[in-house]
């Protein structure tokens, strides 16, 4: 397998993939470097979204607080949601797609390396564009869901909605390009012998995520284009006075928005399904059921969107349909949870940090799943919707689920990505602080919501009984902040230590652990042949023991794609196009055309770039 090498010479610093410096990062098309860029950028935005959350929590820490003005509060809660979804969780998942998928399927890169770089640059510029709105005091303030007709020019005359609408459009381009890339990569680039039903579960869940992205993002793209026409060119798609319908926006948004929820959680499902077997020292329980439940969840995900809209009064038949389809999703989700526990059952559980976060994920996700069933029932949901009960629910899914899962992945794959081990004691401290802080912050929200506290209110009066629970939540949020400070300390400490992580620190089951940490640019000196699931465990069993530390080889003679800056040029063309579209009234049409020219130039040069 991968341990055989092409070239027995030890690699030198000058060998393939050891180039460094800023320019090498700007022009990189290496999936691992792009993965690290995604991760670093997304983590920065995650911290930014976290700071926004802390400001919101300070404001809500007492009744009638004036710490934040109402417009600032509305901007911060909109940006917190938008940031966490589009700039933190999705790109943190993309970090693992980028870095891990080629390694897990035994490939040397993704199918379209330059398109991969393009996705990252568009994502980065989109994220910066969205946050640049703060500099103009015009951050989006209509909520991450952007319900019409509050977003119309009449009710939101400022740039706030423009930043949001165009920012999301830019980010959508990045997501769609990346989804195409990973879809093709997983279909076409698997190592010989890696049949679909031998793929690691993270690859399976990522594959389903790409399908969801490809089918869901066009819908929000269309919705945002319609909104753009309403705001810039005076159409009336969502403007009731012109015969448009605000409810149309809700349908379009949630046909995208509900699959989006699974886009956020399925990668975490995949990560946990990798971590649990390794730290239980036994294979994933019910592999086929895990695959099909994932597929089933994704399929049903397109048939439940209106459960976000029960309070719009759709009538009994629609309510019934969407209630039952929503309840159905609990079945495959339950199967997943039981299979994870089944994986642990009878194992020899090793409680290193990745395992703690994976178990934390299961324990918290159960709560989020159960509260989900509670508001799948429309008459009950009519009380719960738009209250803090829902805020509690989706934080148990997206924080207790996605973030716990992604953090498990970060600790698990850190040695592979950076060649350095993270400190176990700090990792465990991070876990316990996060578990306690998370529950302090979000568990009381169930109660304060059922006791009548609506979402998205910048303050609440005295006398409704909300004070105590909000104080606990605010305190919990700061514990969460400390938890991530501990993570940062851990990262910086490991940075100062030698790069000496072994190739396979956890007795891993999958191909990435067969190659050095961090992997050379070409990943596999020789493309491995796969003979079963858990390919590396299979190999170790055949050899009757652990594999020797793989040698670093020069990789001379392995063809790797050339670096290119044209993806970045193209990304700037796209950014300029949208920026100048927004300032059309002030700057006129020529900058828009010029930006489009830059975009065309980038694509042209990219297409005819010499390969060798």
């Amino acid at each position, binding site marked *: 397998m991968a341990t055989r090498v092409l070239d027995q010479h030890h690699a030198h610093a000058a060998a393939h993939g050891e180039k460094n410096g800023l320019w090498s990062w700007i022009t990189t098309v290496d999936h691992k470097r792009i993965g690290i860029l995604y991760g670093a950028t997304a983590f920065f935005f995650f911290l930014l979204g976290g700071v926004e959350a802390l400001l919101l929590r300070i404001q809500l820490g007492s009744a009638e607080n004036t710490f934040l003005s109402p417009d600032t509060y509305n901007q911060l809660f909109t940006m917190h949601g938008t940031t966490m979804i589009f700039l933190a969780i999705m790109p943190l998942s993309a970090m693992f797609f980028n870095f891990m998928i080629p390694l897990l399927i035994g490939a040397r890169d993704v199918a379209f390396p330059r398109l991969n770089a393009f996705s990252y640059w568009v994502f980065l510029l989109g994220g910066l564009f969205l946050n640049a709105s703060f500099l103009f005091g015009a951050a989006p303030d209509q909520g991450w869901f952007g319900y019409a007709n509050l977003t119309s020019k009449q*009710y939101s005359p400022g740039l706030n909605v423009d930043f949001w609408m165009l920012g999301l459009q830019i980010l959508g381009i990045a997501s769609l390009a990346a989804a195409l890339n990973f879809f093709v990569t997983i279909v076409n680039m698997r190592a010989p012998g890696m049949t679909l039903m031998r793929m690691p579960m993270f690859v399976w869940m990522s594959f389903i995520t790409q399908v969801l992205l490809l089918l869901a993002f066009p819908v929000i793209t269309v919705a945002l284009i319609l909104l753009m026409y309403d705001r810039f060119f005076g159409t009336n798609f969502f403007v009731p006075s012109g015969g448009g319908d605000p409810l149309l926006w809700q349908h379009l948004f949630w046909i995208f928005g509900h699959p989006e929820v699974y886009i956020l959680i399925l990668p975490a499902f995949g990560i946990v399904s990798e971590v649990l077997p390794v730290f239980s020292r036994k294979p994933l329980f019910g592999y086929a059921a895990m695959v099909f439940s994932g597929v089933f969840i994704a399929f049903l995900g397109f048939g439940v969107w209106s459960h976000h809209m029960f309070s719009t009064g759709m009538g009994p038949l629609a309510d019934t349909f969407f*209630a039952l389809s929503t309840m159905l999703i609990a079945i495959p989700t339950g199967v997943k949870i039981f299979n994870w526990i089944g994986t642990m059952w009878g194992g*020899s559980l090793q409680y290193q940090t990745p395992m703690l976060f994976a178990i934390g994920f299961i324990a918290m996700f159960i709560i989020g799943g159960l509260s989900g069933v509670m508001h799948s029932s429309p008459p009950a949901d009519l009380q719960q919707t738009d209250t803090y009960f829902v805020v509690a629910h989706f934080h148990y899914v997206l924080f207790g689920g996605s973030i716990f899962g992604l953090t498990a992945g970060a600790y698990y794959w850190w040695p592979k990505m950076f060649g350095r081990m993270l400190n176990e004691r700090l990792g465990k401290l991070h876990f316990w602080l996060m578990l306690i802080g998370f529950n302090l912050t979000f568990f009381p929200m169930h109660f304060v919501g059922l006791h009548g506290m609506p979402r998205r209110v910048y303050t609440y009066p005295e006398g409704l009984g909300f004070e105590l629970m909000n104080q606990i939540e605010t305190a919990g949020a700061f514990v969460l902040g400390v938890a991530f400070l501990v993570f940062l300390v851990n990262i910086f400490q490991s940075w100062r230590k030698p790069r000496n992580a072994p190739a396979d620190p956890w007795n891993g089951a999958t191909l990435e652990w067969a190659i050095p940490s961090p992997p050379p640019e070409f990943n596999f000196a020789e493309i491995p042949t796969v003979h079963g699931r858990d390919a590396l465990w299979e190999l170790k069993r055949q050899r009757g023991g652990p594999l020797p530390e793989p040698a670093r080889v020069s990789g001379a003679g392995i063809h790797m794609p050339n670096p290119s800056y044209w993806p970045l040029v193209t990304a700037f063309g796209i950014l300029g196009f949208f920026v100048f579209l927004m300032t059309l009234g002030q700057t006129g049409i020529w900058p828009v055309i010029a930006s489009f020219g830059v975009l065309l130039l980038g694509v042209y040069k990219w297409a005819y770039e010499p390969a060798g």
Partner: protein
Amino acid sequence: MLLRTAARCSFPWPAALGLLALVLAGCSPDNYPQTTLLPRGDFAKIADDLLDTTVRWALLVFVLVEGVLLYAIFRFRGKPDDPEPHQTHGNTTVEVIWTVIPALILAAIAVPTVRAIFETNATPGKDALTIEVVGHQWWWEFRYPEYNLTTANEMHVPMGRMVSLRMGSNDVLHSFWVPQFAAKRDVFPNRETRMWFTAQAEGDYPGQCAEFCGIQHGRMSHRIKAQKPADFQAWVAHMQTLKTKPTPAPPTTPPPKPRPGQKAQEGPPARPESIAAATGAGEKLFLAKGCIACHALNAFDAPKGMVGPNLANVGARSYIAAGTLKNTDENLARWIRDPQGIKKGVLMPNLGVTEAEAQALVAYLRAHK
């Protein structure tokens, strides 16, 4: 029922979770006037019963699954040098069982859910009291077509008679929420939505807008005042006397003949002359400052679609500015002088009202009850 019991503290919850819940939920329901867990109306009762059903199942599943997880965590703790555990890949029987059992539990939730969906969507009978609800940025207008009455932010309803809400919006989306008697329903500028409820208890309950509707979404509260039928009829009769229709005159024209005297009969029996004078001055100011352009002062046969809340009975309301401030003289004067400072972005501009003018306006508005 389960959560309600916890809120009432009559017996402790079985699980550790319950203990925590108890601490968090507090012991007296009076502490949570906006709670959904103490339904006092039929619609809210349906929602609460369903919540009880799902909470029971959810708690059962929670305790069992988290229990099994905890058991596994402690039971299968291993050491790095332990022998490799038995390598199982799955077990079809077990997997079928844990697919079927959740399906059965969901069926147990689905049946009452579907029944409740149809119950809550039923059309109210002809004898129901129709109230038209209109959402505005950021206040609620309530109209009683049966009595040709209009009021704002404080809805009076009779106990025991079904209320049929026909709802819409004047601008953006809002959601009308009556946690104690009904639930919530979004309102739209271009379609009518409906909800109904029967108040089964007397009292004065808060509710608030539940759909984000702009900068002051957080300050869009209303009150539901459920009254005994006789009290409600008295209120209606009184409101129908509030017919004052000040002529919408340009600010320069002199005010029409003073009319508050008419109302003074319903107010406190004798009022000092100075207040009467202030009231007269207030009426003048109400026109001069342009208040009249946005606020109607008659409850009976009132104009529709006004920008600001109807003020015919503002003197009798508990709150002003849609729940922002308690309705005291001091607060009302502050509000008149500086609405933008108190409720930034509200459609009422700062009109450069002096302290003395504000006092006069307060006296004038106080007379409207």
